[in-house]
């Protein structure tokens, strides 16, 4: 009898998620769909607000990535002002964005995924937590907690608070950096870099234990999209969008992010209100692409900092083509953290970073503005239209998790087909289906809205909707 398996909610994600697996009569997975709480309403209730409020309003989309929204929103507002912000302000925003990347990647890698990586996918569910890791692997736990603390502390020193800081504003930032704070940040960097390098060592050594997962965790050809600088190197704050195919061919080299609507389309599927963005010239689903750490390291020429470049070369040497398995998002996150720490040090070493001129002022000069930056999970786009008084008439937020939606759904299907078989619902099987979603580190708080800790329920349903079997945990 054909049945449906429902994993609801999915755990150790940013937000609520539910997975539905459709089984055929022999218990083979025929289809898989990923559901999230699907209404936010930010774009709608922002209408009528002054544009300069947008950074602080949209930062409330998420408690993990407020900085990413602050930066994309501020850039959209810069475009409405039609100003070029002072160089020191641009670099301070870069540092803030990189600190955000470190704290978010540390959360994803250590807090959410390291239990799977250190204890194994089949470990008891009540042991798969950062608290348990702190007991069984205190050095690794301390590195993880310390790296998240490092990123948050940099944000706090720059912007006054760790969560929802209001320092980034249209035209720049609202306060220059003091030498004292710069020196405090610089002093924290060497231990942070050492911790990331230690983590890379043990993670690389553990890769061979996950050969099976690497093979089936969203391991298929897609396009990859992300920002690059004018040399084709990894870029997180500015630059052009590059799209490559699964062979590594550059199919779009320097797309203007402000014209994203020309090349990004949004498909719809009947099972969800969440959109499925795709690269327009290839249509849907052929234009399915991935964003985020794996995409960025696949498409960039290199990272542009010495230690991270060495790691990037080793990473890319694993395949002559782009790495296609989403399991490698974990690896890419570590390399990006290393790059971010190095880059922060480089930016702080420039005396210009202490420049007191950090904000350009103007009134409304454009009735439309687009701001694009690389958030930890991928490309983030804010797009506003205003009236002549600067009041928001229309807003559109394109979130990294949304970009990855199609690939995530396909990845769940691939993983479920490999691990899920009929009535034999083992804990490790459920965890692997969740773990493939976790590799993307989806921020459902951003792409939709949710908060809190989530238990897990798996339901088997007959075609008539009747419940055949239920497995619940958490």
């Amino acid at each position: 009898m054909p049945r449906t398996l429902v994993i609801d909610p999915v755990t150790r994600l940013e937000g609520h998620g539910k997975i539905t697996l459709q089984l055929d009569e022999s218990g083979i997975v025929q289809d898989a769909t990923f559901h999230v709480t699907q209404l936010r309403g930010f774009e709608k209730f922002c209408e009528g607000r002054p544009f300069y409020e947008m950074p602080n309003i949209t930062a409330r989309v998420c408690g993990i990535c407020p900085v990413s929204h602050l930066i994309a929103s501020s850039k959209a507002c810069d475009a409405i002002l039609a100003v070029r912000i002072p160089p020191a302000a641009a670099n301070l925003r870069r540092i803030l964005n990189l600190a955000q990347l470190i704290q978010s990647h540390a959360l994803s890698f250590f807090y959410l995924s390291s239990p799977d990586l250190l204890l194994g996918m089949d470990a008891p569910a009540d042991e798969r937590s950062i608290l348990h890791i702190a007991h069984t692997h205190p050095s690794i736990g301390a590195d993880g907690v310390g790296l998240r603390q490092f990123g948050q502390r940099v944000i706090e020193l720059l912007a006054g608070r760790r969560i929802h800081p209001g320092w980034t504003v249209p035209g720049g930032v609202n306060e220059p950096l003091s030498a004292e704070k710069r020196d405090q940040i610089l002093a924290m960097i060497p231990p942070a870099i050492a911790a990331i390098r230690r983590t890379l060592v043990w993670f690389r050594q553990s890769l061979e234990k996950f050969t099976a997962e690497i093979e089936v965790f969203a391991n298929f050809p897609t396009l990859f999209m992300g920002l690059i600088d004018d040399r084709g190197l990894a870029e997180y704050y500015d630059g052009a969008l590059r799209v490559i195919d699964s062979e590594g061919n550059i199919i779009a080299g320097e797309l203007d992010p402000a014209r994203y609507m020309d090349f990004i389309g949004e498909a719809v599927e009947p099972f969800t209100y969440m959109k499925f963005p795709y690269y327009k010239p290839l249509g849907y689903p052929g234009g399915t692409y991935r964003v985020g750490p794996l995409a960025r390291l696949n498409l960039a020429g290199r990272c542009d900092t010495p230690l991270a470049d060495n790691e990037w070369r080793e990473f890319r040497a694993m395949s002559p083509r782009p790495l296609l398995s989403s399991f490698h998002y974990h690896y890419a996150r570590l390399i990006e953290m290393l790059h971010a720490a190095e880059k922060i040090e480089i930016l702080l070493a420039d005396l210009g970073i202490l420049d007191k001129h950090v904000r350009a002022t103007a009134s409304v000069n454009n009735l439309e503005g687009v701001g694009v930056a690389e958030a930890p999970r991928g490309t983030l786009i804010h797009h506003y239209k205003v009236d002549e008084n600067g009041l928001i008439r229309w807003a559109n937020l394109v979130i990294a998790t949304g970009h990855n939606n199609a690939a995530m759904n396909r990845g769940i299907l691939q993983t479920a087909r490999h691990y899920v078989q009929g009535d034999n619902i083992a804990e490790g099987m459920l965890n692997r289906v969740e773990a493939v979603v976790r590799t993307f580190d989806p921020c459902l708080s951003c792409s939709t809205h949710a908060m809190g800790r989530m238990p897990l329920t798996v339901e088997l349903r007959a075609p008539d909707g009747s419940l055949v079997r239920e497995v619940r945990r958490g």
Partner: protein
Amino acid sequence: MDANLTNTPQPPASAASPLHASRAGAASPALLLACGNSLREDDGVGLQIAEAVEQLFPASRLRIVAAQQFTPEMAADVAATDLAIFVDASAGDDPGAIRVCSVAARPDSAETHRMDPPALLAMAESLCGHTPAHAFALTVGAGQFGYGTEIGGSVRQAIPRACRLVGNLLSAFSRTQA
């Protein structure tokens, strides 16, 4: 295989950890950790107590950390003191009722984003090899958790009393240090 990749409990993290580095050289005053949501009415009482206490005691005597929730990153702060006072609203008590109780480490929380005081103490022990000699939870009964920044009358009236209790804990702690 790296020695870290075993399930055997290991010694606390080394001093090279960034967790320690961010607090290197800091003095070790008593610590007040307050949490709550200032936008959910009475839930913000812990934060208001933190603000009030900040006016009463110098930072050299009492370090204050206020946040929406307790998180693992606070383990280093907890490990760096011998008196930790956790302040929060309590949904289980009558509005305005104050409860002070000692807290011990308990490593059985599966949370990843937020922690309760026993779990935070356990994490401090695991990661930093130290927990405060004295740890207390000070809670204030809360009745309203709706949207809004206003705190109910009986809860608001409890704030001065809560501050005095913090002062008592500090004084008792000072005597043990003398």
